[in-house]
């Protein structure tokens, strides 16, 4: 990857000049005196967690805030003050000189229009091209953003394209009128890592070839460090620090920036509680195949056509020793969640077997099944969806204890408050319902509930993927402590290879329902053997500098 652009382009007048901008919604001030500049041809990163105001400032610059927002301060684009512009003047500017791309391309493309037409529209509007001319250019643009067979793809509808291709289409539409500034709001967050790397590469090329200035908003410092020359760090609606990318990463001045840098996946090793691998594995998966029936429509039924089932897992073998932490990595659709669901008996295996302590789990019933439930527990992905919205945190944690007859209801509540304490939640939060808790807090409640039955094996399925990086680091630290204190066997499922390799002893890499590579985490990360793993590793946006080695995270 190329280094950030040389600061030489920074000479001259700023392209976008934001001076002392504050934004107020009702009584809430979401932006406080934000000032920064973007030079022509520069890539500036805006980092911050959700709620930090990083999207708001960019919407303010584009004049896209709702009318209920009160904006003070000055925004200048190319020496033109943007306050008080009428809607007609904004329309001349937006899409022409300033363009924006968003996190979820699927929701910003019109599902009823062919993508070629959608790319052509701004050119017809702003450049006065005729329909056929614009469509021709659209095809050319699709080629520029790296879409193969652009003429054919221009005739596709959005649902016929993958997530990465949709984002490319969005970019093609955004750059169609050769804008001078592109605001990219988390453009790669919803995409798989290998796709993310390609989109970032594309943005870098556009910057280099067309001199396009880019404001890249991301929660991922690794991404920003990779392609930005300057980084602005925001928190609670304020800029806490801005400077050269290298300086922000290597010598952060503000404590929050330091926390953010330290929280990046892969910066810290969580080795606490790694156990020695034993000879006899606790959990064995042998030749596991899981099939999902394909949908048969009514014509198929009448013609007596057999639907081809879809193999979510296809011949998977793995083994986990007691006390070990094993990572499962793969992109969406690779079958990693299916594996978890099969181990907790939510799916049936078509063939192959899962053994716990040498006994197959498939045919367990009654008491023995309850025994399995006590030994294997799971923490789920979506912090809000995984808790019953009508139960308080304490009730949620206490329920498994008394339902399994391990204590009466009052004693269960006592134990639940101890568990609450164990996952580092203040006792006062026990009376709250999920919607009154933050995502990180919900996830802690989910962990406490899973641990209430004192399981041996804990499966964590993407438990931090919906959380901010600093929260993610805290949850990982908590899990590392718990696995040491409780001698837990952990199966940690994630799409993020850097998280998995910093947290797990061994890693299995999944692709399309098969294991493509396995081995010690450090080895897979530093010396991947398979082409797919190499691609995964190459697409990681790790911060420069060495991984901070810590033998044990003691608290």
């Amino acid at each position: 990857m190329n280094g950030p652009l040389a600061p030489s382009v920074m000479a001259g007048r700023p392209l976008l000049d934001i001076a002392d901008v504050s934004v107020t919604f009702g009584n809430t001030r979401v932006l406080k005196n934000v000032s920064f500049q973007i030079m022509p041809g520069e890539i500036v990163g805006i980092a911050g967690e959700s709620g930090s105001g990083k999207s708001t400032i960019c919407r303010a610059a584009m004049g896209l805030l709702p009318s209920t927002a009160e904006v003070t301060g000055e925004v200048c684009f190319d020496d033109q003050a943007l306050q008080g512009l009428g809607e007609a003047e904004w329309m001349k500017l937006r899409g022409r000189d300033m363009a924006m791309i968003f996190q979820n391309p699927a929701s910003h493309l019109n599902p009823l229009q062919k993508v070629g037409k959608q790319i052509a529209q701004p050119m017809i509007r702003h450049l006065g091209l005729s329909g056929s001319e614009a469509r021709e250019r659209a095809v050319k643009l699709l080629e520029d953003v790296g879409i193969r067979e652009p003429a054919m793809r221009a005739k596709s509808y959005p649902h016929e394209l993958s997530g990465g291709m949709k984002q490319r289409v969005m970019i093609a539409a955004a750059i169609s009128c050769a804008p001078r500034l592109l605001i990219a709001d988390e453009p790669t967050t919803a995409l798989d890592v290998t796709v993310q790397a390609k989109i970032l590469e594309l943005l870098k090329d556009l910057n280099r070839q067309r001199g396009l200035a880019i404001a890249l908003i991301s929660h991922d410092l690794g991404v920003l460090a990779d392609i930005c020359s300057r980084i602005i760090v925001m928190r609670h609606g304020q800029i806490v620090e801005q400077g050269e990318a290298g300086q922000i990463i290597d010598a952060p001045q503000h404590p929050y920036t330091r926390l953010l840098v330290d929280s990046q996946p892969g910066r810290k090793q969580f080795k606490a509680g790694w156990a020695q691998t034993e000879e006899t594995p606790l959990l064995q998966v042998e030749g596991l195949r899981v099939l999902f029936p394909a949908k048969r429509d009514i014509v198929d039924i009448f013609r007596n056509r057999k639907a081809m089932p879809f193999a979510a897992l296809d011949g998977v073998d793995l083994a986990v020793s007691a006390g070990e932490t094993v990572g499962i990595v793969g992109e969406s659709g690779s079958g990693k969640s299916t594996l978890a669901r099969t181990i907790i008996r939510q799916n049936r295996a078509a063939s192959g077997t899962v053994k716990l302590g040498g006994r197959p789990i498939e045919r367990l019933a009654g008491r023995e099944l309850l025994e399995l439930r006590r030994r294997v527990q799971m923490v789920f992905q979506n912090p809000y969806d995984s808790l019953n919205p009508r139960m308080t945190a304490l009730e949620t944690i206490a329920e498994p204890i008394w339902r399994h007859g391990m204590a009466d209801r009052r004693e269960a509540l006592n134990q639940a408050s101890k568990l609450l304490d164990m996952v580092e939640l203040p006792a006062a939060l026990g009376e709250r319902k999920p919607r009154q808790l933050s995502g990180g807090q919900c996830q802690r409640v989910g962990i406490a509930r899973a641990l209430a039955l004192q399981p041996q094996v804990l499966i964590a399925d993407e438990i931090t993927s919906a959380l901010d990086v600093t929260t993610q680091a805290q949850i990982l630290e908590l899990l590392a402590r718990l696995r040491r204190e409780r001698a837990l066997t952990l199966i940690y499922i994630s799409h993020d290879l850097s998280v998995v390799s910093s947290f797990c002893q061994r890693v299995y890499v999944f692709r399309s329902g098969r294991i493509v590579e396995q081995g010690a985490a450090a080895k897979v990360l530093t010396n991947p053997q398979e082409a797919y793993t190499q691609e995964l590793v190459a697409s990681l946006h790790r911060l420069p500098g060495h991984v901070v080695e810590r033998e044990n995270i003691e608290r």
Partner: protein
Amino acid sequence: MSIEAVPASDPIKQAAVVLPWSIVVAGSIVGLWIILALFAPVVAPYDPTAVDIANALKAPSVAHWFGTDQVGRDVLSRVIHGARIDLLMCLAGVLPPLLIGTTVGLLSGYYGGTVDTLLMRLYDLTAAFPFFVLVLAIVGVLGPGLLNFFIALAVVGWVTYARLVRAEVMAIRDSEYVQAAQCLGYSDRVVLLRHVLPNAFGPVVAYAVSDAVLVMLAGASFGFLGMGAQPPLAEWGVMISDGSRYIRQAWWICTFPGLAAISLGLGLAFLGDGLGQLRRGQVSA
């Protein structure tokens, strides 16, 4: 972007839910009728069945606020006592289909499969007939009377509840907290009653209140047609039907029970609407 931003707003602020005005107004109308019905013998100035031929067909006056009917019964007292019957009718007309429909919807939504498919076809079949026509046909077969009317309502009404609950349950079935409950080894009964049903019940309550309007109107109409409540029962529909013969000489006999039916009907309708709004608001909050 993460979900972390959502609860950043103050939890205390979320707790204070602003009631839409429609709920307040509609709630007080319905509440007033319920109080009147409960205390009917105390509130009503006269015995609703006391015949007083000497005072028949008297216009509204200080003694008889709503006037008297063709046999001298006090219309006000009859309207107040009628509220008892009409409200009970709402309850008896709504509860059985609600219970049957919720149970069926819960099971068929959660387990799915062939039974679910068959039940849904049964729904389509029932929904293909107009509500009144089907109820009328069933009452016609069973014979007139309140009990048969309620049986007909249950036979026709449960499918809507079943459909409503089933749709909710199918969404909730795949949520992670239900998966977690299954994974924790809870029995199906616990998962269904403790984790699925409470979260699927909101729209049912909102619909049940609107359904009560339909039942009340049906009850009054059937009383009017002589297929439901039978005279001399002080039921609003029956009263309107009775009074309609004297509408030229004594407009008050059928007007007041009519107004009573309209006010209770509107009250229930707005209440159901408001509850639905409140629920949707809570979901998006």
